[in-house]
């Protein structure tokens, strides 16, 4: 299951860091951040609660870049 989320991030390197942070969140199979479109595409593991996982993703992203925002 893949889903796209709108994000807000100012610098390209921060976007890379967010991508890495999202990938390392449990329940996320793969994640990709599109800095130019300000979009994050997340592929979830089977049978996980998506909103719950996204909360975690957001928390992890905030850790690496406090200014960033993920709109769930």
């Amino acid at each position, binding site marked *: 299951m893949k889903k796209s989320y709108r994000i807000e991030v100012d610098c390209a390197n921060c976007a890379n860091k967010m991508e890495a942070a999202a990938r390392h969140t449990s329940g996320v199979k793969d994640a*990709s951040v599109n800095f130019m479109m300000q979009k994050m595409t997340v592929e979830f593991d089977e049978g996980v609660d998506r909103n719950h996982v996204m909360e975690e993703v957001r928390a992890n992203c905030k850790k690496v870049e406090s200014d960033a925002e993920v709109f769930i």
Partner: protein
Amino acid sequence: MNKKQKVMLIRILISAFFMIVLSFSSVSGLPRFILYMAVYLVIGYDILLKAIRGIINGQVFDECFLMAVATVGAIVLAIYSKSGDYTEAIAVMLFYQIGELFQSYAVGKSRKNITQLMDIRPDYANIEKNGKLEKVAPDDVEIGSVIIIQPGEKVPIDSVVVEGSSSLDTSALTGESLPREVHQGDEIVSGSVNMTGVLKARTEKEFGESTVSKILDMVENASSRKSRSEDFISKFARIYTPAVCIAALALATIPAILNLLLGQDPMWGTWMYRALTFLVISCPCALVISIPLSFFAGIGGASNAGVLVKGSNYLETLSKTKTVVFDKTGTLTQGVFEVVAIHHKAIDEEKIIEYAAYAESASSHPIAKSIERYYGKELDRSRVSDIEEKSGNGVVAKVDGHFVAVGNDKLMNTLGIEYIPCRSVGTIIHVAVDGAYVGHIVISDVLKADSKDAVRRLKEIGVKKVVMLTGDSKKVANDVAATLKMDEVFSELLPGDKVERVEKLLLMEGKNDKLAFVGDGINDAPVLSRADIGIAMGAMGSDAAIEAADIVLMDDDPMKIAKAIRISKKCLSIVYQNIVFAIGVKLICLILGALGMASMWLAIFADVGVMVIAVLNAIRALFVKNL
């Protein structure tokens, strides 16, 4: 500029102003320190806060942290050496913020420009209700509804004209500036703009399935598929910052300790300063921003020219294309068959065509259609019976009580009818009535006007080999290949053979050379996906082609292939320029910094300057009109 950027700009202006004022004042001692610190905090408070938050979250190599260490370090050095020169720390922070502001402004601006270029999304559809027009969201329109498109409006959903005629501007979709005339019964594609008359049209698809949605979806997801250059840069960025930091630490300590051991003056201050200069250059931003921006601009420019690229990786592969394989029908030729001659007539020409048209009346094969078109009269199906298709060879049927056989050499052979072979180039359809040969029809596919130029252009831009594949007979294939100056031609191929042929060609490629296959997207999906890069032509409205191909040409102009390659080459050369330029300048700064020949001023100037130049260079990828 958004609000955040405006606030930043004001902070930059205020701190720049006071920095200059302070440098002319003669305040000294503690008041001087306090005044300078006030300016420093105005420009850098958010960086300091982020640095602290970064440390709490274990993000040591965060660029805010590095900036904080560099500037605070510079202040400490100024106090330690009693020089009172705090300007440097403020200047570094100031330029860093200017760089960040420029970056966010430039990226925002180009994002807006590129999405505007792709502004084909219709906002509403008009539906007539009780004699009044009502605007509804395109999503809410069901299949089969009648919509009304007024002049100046976008066609919201793929549909068929039921009333009215007009000309449509499809340039946003195809890059083709010539308007398209549409009349009752014609299909109209969503995303094109109605120019002259009011059209009433019945929708054929849901909005989500319409061409415009598919294209937008494709373009928006394009930059998610990352190229090798982008991967390289993000990996590089990950090791670059820590490496520079470790080098800075080493630079701050090792020479000083060595000096100490040798009994000389350790010069802590000097080495510390050089190490801090390192930290200023440690941010990989110029690289990290300019590479995806180049690809984004390249993809945006390409789609404006009617070339849809599904991902940065495909743009990268396309630029290395050395072999282009064409499927003949529909790409080099118009895919429209025409009767060009009738030979060896034993009976009236019209009679031959009439028999052939009736016998083929049940077939939807393009050849059958071309005979029917040439016949030009309404077919009375009751005159024909017992139609039997001989797969791949032809048709036998009873027309007006006569036994009619229409087909190729093989059909005549199996029926034991003697035929006269033809020397003309084209598809030969023999006709026999009641077992007697009455002549043959020559049908041929028409070459596109630009095909020859397209092949020549490909050669000019560095494609080494142009190959043609076709299911057609050898004679037709060789003739077309000779006209177009193809390097190789393979004929009489079944769809499965084409995959095999492409696989063989793939084996013959050089290590870094890529093979592109160009098809019309109809029944060549397996080949499209097998090639290094699949290009589908004339795909407007064909879902299968959009799915299977990596690059989609919205119209069917073969010249666009060379153009697409040119666009990709320009984009990639910009990418390489930026990589070499940014890494090169940083390396030079690092060396100069280590030797003590670069001050922090120069370092920050280089850092921000490189970023600005790289971003401006990246935006160049957008301009593809004259390629």
